[in-house]
Each structure stands twice: as C-alpha cells, then as structure tokens.
C-alpha cells in the first residue's frame, strides 16, 4: 500500500506552543479541513475517519462529512476509534482510493491529517510488526471530562514504551509517534516534527518523511498507544503534502461563549436546508440564473421549479462584512458576518467569519468557505460554511 498525497490541518489558536480548536471546530470539521483539499483533487472511494475520542458518539455526521467532501452516496464514511497505532494500521490495510483521516481534538494537540491511498507511487508502506499490550496509564471513561492518570512517566517508559520500541525497531533509522518528542529521543528514535501523540500524528510523521526531512532510503515508523504498537517500513519518497497551518494566535484571543443558552432547533427546517447547506449547492435555473440558498422562484426570469443543483466554488470575495462585538448568548463572540461573492457565479453567501480574533475580513478581501459547526441547537450540531480570509492577520500585524 502507498500514500499518494497528504493533507494537514491545524487550528490557528495556540496555547504554550500547542494548538487548540476553535469554538466552531469539532472532530468532524477538523476531519473535513484536512480531507477536503485531497477530495477536491482526487477520486475518493471510501473515507475512514479515526480519532481517539469522538466528541459525538451517537448521530455522528458521517453524511455531513460525505457532502462536505463532495462525495456521493457510493463513497461510505466510517468512524473508528483508536490511537496512533490504529491510524497506522488503517493506513497499512486501506484499499486504493481510500481517504484515511486522523483527528485529534484534545486541547493542546488539536490537529488533523489525511492521506489518499494508492496501489503504488508516493510513500510505500509495508507491515513491520505489531504488539498488543495493555498498560492503562490513562483511563478516561465515556462522558468523563478528566482521565484517571497514573502519574509516573518512568513506569510507562520502563513497562511499555521502551520494550515496545525495542521489539518494533528497524535496521535503519527508527521514528516514533505516540510519544512526546523528548520521550522518543530517550527511546533512541530520530526526531520528527509531530504536533500530537494521537492518530493525527501519524500523518504529520509521514509528511515529514515524505518531504525530504528524513534520512535517505527506508525508515521504520513505530506508532504507539499505551502498551500497543504498530510498525511500518516507510519509503522516504517525496510526496505531495498540502498544509493548512497558519501561524498560531494566542488562545486568549479566541472567541468564546460568555452565556450559554438553548437556541431553538427545527428538525424539518434542518432537513430542508441540509443538502444545499452542507454541500454548498446552489440552484441553477434553465435561464442560467443561479441562486443560493436555492430558490423555487428564479431571481432573473421569475419562473418556478426549473432548477438543477449546482455545486459552488469554495472561494470568493467579501462583498460586505461586520464584526459583532456585543455578546450574544449561545454564540461564541466576538463573531463576524460576511456576505461573500462566490467565484465563477453571481451567487452571494451569508456566512460567519471563521477564526475572528486571528483574522478579520475586509470588503474586497479574498478567502475560502470552510465547513464549521455554526451552532449547537438543543444539543444538535448545526454545520454550515464560514468565510476564512486568505489574508493572515498575524503576518499582517508583523509587517505593519
């Protein structure tokens, strides 16, 4: 099996050098952020989404993922639970055309990676052993906020990680994910720029190995989770790596919900809007006019119900923008609202602005429409598109 292309995403918010998800980001949106750039360029037969701690267990939006990626019903989306070792396992076992996505949501390690699998070319992966042990150093029960931690890192190293790495080590250079960089170094592994110990870390490791950072030739990648490990021999072939990692912005500037409130929710209204809203699909009339949100009555010719669904570009320019400073219960603020003229059409979209605090929007500015969790209404996550400016506010502030 081989990895034909990789895509990496990290939220913009930073705390002590680590990344933290935004208030409108969750496992699903992080997965789409990493997977979408690959799905735009390659045919995808199947999606396997792996995370160590899903934030939604029942009613996870696999259908939202499929539509946000522009996939039909023929491409199933599967949610799995597992750590870095499981992520490497999925990569080793996935069929060509599978889009494998690893997501970490935990504060301090929020990141997502995606890999498009192929039958050859790119980074070649081959099975190099696995160990299934159990050393419950950290146990978090479903629904519990905090994990029970056995607070003795030396015990973990002596009883779990060191023996594991010893058994899975290769002839040449060995790289470890699933342990901190300092821990990996202590275990005799070569350093890798991996921002998380969870499943997303495997994708960052492969990206590093596939971008010329690694030593020439074959490498051994060992992925750990507690006392289990999986190993693969990896060719350090150069591979396409798409990166969406902007300079971090202090988490203190991240919008937050000051006052929680139940926002009423209508399931029929959600259902009616769903296909167009999540797929970003407009209605094109026989006369050529396009509308979004889709309309029955054409804006141009006045005829009704002569429309066909038309996917919109995910890029555009700000027609108008305002920042909402006043705190609104139930919405993380300050937030921004923009009306965006979508590329290649006359359509405009009303959207929240993503990552307000890190980047503003200005009239005339270009950017992308990215999937975000717009609201949680009566417990139901409500997804939609937010505008994310191409202008990086941090870079802009530096140069100003």
């Amino acid at each position, binding site marked *: 099996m081989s990895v034909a292309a990789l895509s990496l995403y990290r939220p913009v918010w930073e705390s002590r050098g680590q990344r933290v998800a935004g208030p409108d980001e969750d496992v699903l949106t992080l997965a789409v952020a990493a997977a979408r750039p690959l799905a735009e360029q390659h045919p995808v037969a199947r999606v396997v989404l792996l995370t160590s701690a899903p934030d939604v267990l029942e009613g996870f939006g696999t259908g939202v993922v499929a539509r946000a990626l522009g996939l039909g019903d023929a491409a199933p989306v599967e949610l799995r639970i597992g750590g870095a070792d499981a992520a490497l396992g999925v990569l080793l076992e996935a069929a060509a055309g599978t889009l494998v996505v690893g997501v970490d949501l935990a504060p301090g390690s929020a990141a997502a990676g995606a890999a498009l699998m192929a039958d050859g070319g790119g980074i070649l992966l081959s099975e190099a052993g696995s160990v299934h042990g159990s050393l419950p150093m950290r146990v978090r029960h479903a629904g519990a906020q905090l994990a029970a931690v056995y607070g003795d890192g030396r015990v973990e190293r002596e009883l779990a990680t060191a023996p594991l790495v010893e058994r899975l080590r290769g002839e040449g250079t060995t790289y470890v994910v699933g342990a901190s960089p300092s821990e990996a170094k202590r275990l005799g592994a070569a350093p890798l720029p991996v921002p998380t110990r969870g499943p997303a870390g495997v994708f960052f490791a492969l990206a590093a190995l596939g971008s010329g950072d690694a030593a020439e030739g074959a490498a051994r990648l060992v992925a750990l989770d507690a006392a289990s490990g999986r190993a693969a021999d990896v060719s350090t072939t150069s591979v396409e790596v798409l990166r969406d990692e902007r300079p971090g912005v202090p988490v203190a500037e991240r919008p937050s919900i000051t*006052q929680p409130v139940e926002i009423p929710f209508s399931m029929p209204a959600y259902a*009616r809007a769903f296909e167009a809203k999540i797929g970003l699909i407009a209605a094109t009339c026989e006369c050529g006019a396009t509308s979004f949100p889709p309309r029955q009555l054409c*804006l141009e010719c006045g005829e009704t119900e002569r429309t066909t669904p038309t996917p919109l570009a995910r890029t555009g320019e700000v027609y108008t923008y305002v920042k*909402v400073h006043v705190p609104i*219960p*139930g919405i993380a603020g300050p937030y921004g609202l923009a*009306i965006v003229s979508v590329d290649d059409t006359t359509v405009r979209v009303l959207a929240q602005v993503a990552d307000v605090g890190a980047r503003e929007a200005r009239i005339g500015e270009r950017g992308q429409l990215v999937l975000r969790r717009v*609201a949680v*209404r009566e417990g139901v996550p409500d997804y939609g598109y937010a505008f994310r400016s191409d202008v990086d506010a941090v870079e802009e502030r530096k140069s100003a």
Partner: protein
Amino acid sequence: MRDVAVVGAGMVPFGERFDQGMKELLPVTLANALASVDKGMERSEIQAAWFGQLQTSDGHPAGVLADSCGLLDIPVTRIENQCATGNDAVRNATLAIASGAIDVALVIGADKTRETPSVSTFWDWMGLARDRGWDYPLGLIAPANFALHVARYMHEYDVRPEHLAMVAVKNHHNAVTNPIAHLRMEVTVEQVLAAPRVVGPFGVLDCTPQSDGAAALLLASAEVADRYTDHPVWVRGVGLGLDRVMHAHKADMTTFPATTKAAKAAYSMAGIGPSDIDVAEVHDCFSGVELMDYEDLGFCERGDAKKLIESGATKIGGSLPVNPSGGLKAKGHPPGATGVAQCVELFEQLRGEACNQLDSPRWGLAHNIGGPTAVSAVTILEAPRG
C-alpha cells in the same frame, strides 16, 4: 376613493414602562388620542380598529385591545409587518375609510420590548424574521442585519463614521426638548465615535434604545371630519414596499428597494414628489440607516446623503428637517408603535402644535424599513387647508 383625515392623535411617553402592561398602556393611549380631538369624540363612535404590534405581550393582541379599551363591539385587526407595522396599520385603516366601508377608525400601535430579558431578545427577534434553517443560527441580529448594508454603503460612497455620528447628534438634540422621548440627552460626535462598539460601524450611541410605548391616531372620512375638528390633517399617500428576505439574494445592498417602492407608491398617490416634503420622520433604528433613507426617499441623489447631513439641511431650521421628534434613535422604538408615533409627530407639526415646532410645514412624510430589510411603509400627510 374618499379623502381621509387624521382628527386626533395621542401617545404615551416612550421608555422603560415596567409598571404598565399592554392592558394599561392601550386605554391610556386611546384616552389621550380621544382627548386631542378638537370637538370631542366618544369611544363608541369608533367603527373599526387596526392594532399594530410586532411581538405579543399579555396575549392575543386584537383581543387585548378590544377588551382593555372597551371596543368589544367593533372589528379589531392586528397588523404585524415587522418595523413597518405602524405605518402599515395606518395604511389599512386609511384604505378602509377611503373605500367607504367605515367613517371613523382607530389606529393604535404598541410594543413592550422590555418584557423579556435582553439576553433572550436577540433570539426572540431573530425567530420572528429569520429562516430557521439558514440565517437564524448564524446570529444575524437586528443591528447586523442593517450594518451589513451600511458597511457596504460606506465602502461604496466613502462615507465616514463621523457622518453616521452626525445623525445621532442631530436626533439626540431634537429629543432633548421632546417630553415623550426615551433618551433626552445631547451627545457629541466624539462621544458617538468613542462609545462601546455594538456591530460593525455602529456603537451604542448609533443604536435605537429598546423602548416600551404606544401611540394612536383617529382617522375619519372627509364626509364626517368636520364633526371632530376644523383643522384635520389629510392622509394623502400610503405605500408599502417589499424586498427579498435573504441578504444573499439582495443584488445591491447600498439601497433598500422596499423603501423606494413604498415611497414611489405614496408619492404617486399624493401626487407630489420628494422635493415637496417639508418634514420627515424616517427610520433611523441605526444612525447610518437614516443616511440611506435620504437617498431611497429621494431627498438627495445616490451617494449624496453625507453632503445632506454635513450641510445641516436635515436639522430643525434646515430646508428639510428629518426626525424633529428625535427619531427612533432618541425618541425610542417600540416597533408596533413607532410608525404610528411618527404620524402623531407629523399631525402636531402640520397643525402647528409640536414641541419642536417647524415653520408651518405643509407636507409630512413618515417612513419605516424593517424585518430583514424586506418591508417598508411610507405615509404622506398634508396640513389642514388654509
């Protein structure tokens, strides 16, 4: 169609009226309107009533009006058309009298925006005017609804925040001497610009307060008007205009097409044009909206509103005073009452009885724009003859 006259007008002070519910506000307002009728009018002479109320408080609006005001034996219709509610109620009553169906009608508007905590007000109001599946969860609150327009308008016509502030300064100044105004204090351009930010170009002092209040008009056909007064004010034009409800579907956000349509209908019915207007009460829920109103109502060319406000023409004493009452900005804005209260102000101005009396105006115009900037109502009144 028959001519329709305003023969009486009354209201209660706008503000936070925690001590009075609908059932208390309405009869007092009606009594004030009846008391203003020069030759007197009995409650029993009212043949039909139109009640403008945006949000229900104290229950079923038409029933509460009929019950609390002793109008159980006449038809009462509740009008709800977002912020255009008041002037739309005037329009409906006018057409009923003009048709010959009735001779005397009550138009009353009231709202109590302070009945629920302000934290829930945002969602309550969005629930009234936003698509549940699309715009509602985005948090398109009322100020953002207008600010998206004003931000683009400022961008295209190089309008500065100072121009917006001039509107607030003018309308606050007018409210100081209006005893029924909610915010009776002067503000300066510097204070408006330095005030805490709300949404986009609007700070706190660019925004209308949340007011409770009520206002009423007594309308009569020309045939019976002289029973009530020798100085009737004439309803010469009424117009209602609509526009797309979703901002994404609006082609040009630097104008409110609902306003231009409502104004065109009202001017055409009155047989006059914008240059004939001597006094206007326009929708200034947010300072910048008044500037856009100048253009949509035809008081100046597109893009010239900033010159109009700079020139001082819309101040009291200028060539076209706008919002001599203080406007929504300072007089206050209980939505159902707002349009009716504008007509109360014009009734007094055109009869020479206003608190901020202008120099004998002949034509007055009242205007509202509301909801998702999708509905506007305009009423044109003419001063008593001779």
